[in-house]
């Protein structure tokens, strides 16, 4: 597991009060992790802060699973590098 993935899961565990076992890549925030739309906004803010990226509202709408977040951050970071 890459350091980005580890960090993403760590943030999700803290923000959503869920266990590491629940944080499988295909876990959907709303359907599997009990999040609501405000939880996702807060989560995305934490990602922005931790990874020094910006996620627009349009992009936020496309985020459904943990894998989506990981792919998204990797893409953004790739673009930065």
């Amino acid at each position, binding site marked *: 597991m890459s350091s980005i993935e580890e960090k993403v899961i760590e943030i999700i565990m803290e*923000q*959503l*009060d869920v266990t590491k076992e629940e944080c499988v890549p295909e876990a959907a925030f709303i359907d599997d992790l009990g999040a609501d739309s*405000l939880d996702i*906004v*807060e989560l995305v*803010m934490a990602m922005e*802060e931790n990874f020094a990226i910006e996620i627009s509202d349009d992009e936020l709408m496309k985020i459904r699973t943990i894998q989506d977040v990981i792919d998204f951050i990797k893409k953004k970071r790739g673009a930065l590098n």
Partner: protein
Amino acid sequence: MKRRVVITGLGTVNPIGNCVKDSWEGICSGKSGIGTITKFDTDGFSTKIAGEVKGFDPRAFVSAKEARRLDDFLIYALASAAMALEDAGLTIDASRAERTGVIIGSGIGGLLTMEKAKETLMQQGPRRLSPFTIPAVLANLAAGQVSIRFGAKGPISCTVTACSSGANAIGDSFRLIACGHADVMITGGAEAAVSPLTIAGFNAMRALSTRNDAPEKASRPFDKDRDGFVMGEGCGILILEELSSALKRGARIYAEISGLGVTSDAFHIAAPPPGHEGAARSMRLALQEAGLGTGEIDYINTHGTSTPLNDLYEVQAIKHVFGEKARSLAVSSTKSMTGHLLGAAGGLEAVITAKAIEEGVLPPTINLDNPDDECDLDFVPHTSRKGEIRAAMSNAFGFGGVNAVLVFKKYT
């Protein structure tokens, strides 16, 4: 015909204790909950003391996620409501949900959250505000959070009448049940306003005590040397229930609530008028609704803030209403121990008054070392004492000229 309303559950978090039992023991032993402010750095503030909630574990009542997102006044409300419902032995199931309502008052709402959010806004910009900022600030979210948590789907509201918010909430809840709009109400007041803005703001009004070197002595209602109120925080919640509903489930009944009097001074934003005619009218109206004469009241839990004006004028109003009988009444200010919980004061003081009636104990006014010459009633100085209470009154007055008086009586 109006229905009878009784109190079947109590819950509180306050500067003296984090449950009814500890709080009542503290009240009976004349314990002060006032100390040096720990919530923020008071460097440069005239007042450095308050009645803070101590040793309270939010995690006993809310999840880690909620503890992070909710303002303290919301956590105090959730905790107090949980304890009150448990005390009442009441579960709000489907058969009850639509007939169970919530009114919890708050004078200010989530002010500390607002102050921190403003800092974030100024330092980090508008995109860094938590989406949970607004729901933590809104005053009516105490009632909202409680209704969501416990599934109460009946009437919901929030009274925002400064220092009488809690009393107004209980009074309005009483009438909703009495008039048939609900069978159960979860009601009271919640406040967590020990913050830089409120302390500085009330200091600007010269309303707070500055007895920083002796915090436990600072709240001294009716004493010659009183120099302002001491801010407290916390919550007091009552479960009000229509009498036949309470009897049907064999609930313990602390007391009956039988009257409310609400008036406006129409005088000044903060000061009461000399003689406090509006307070006197509230007391009369509450007695009238309760169908009680002045001779039937044995105890008054006063507003008694420890400010020079309030205490003097409240005594004058009591004398005006009760005449010669004022001298045979027990009249105390439990704010001498708890501090002034602003919008939660009416809630906490209703909890204390209900316990006083149930136990037959008159709560004391501590720090009354040299009573003001014009404050010459039986304030139950220093220590509590036994005394049967057939009926009691709880006074709450708020900025803007609000006067709310509740009458409770022993259930027979």
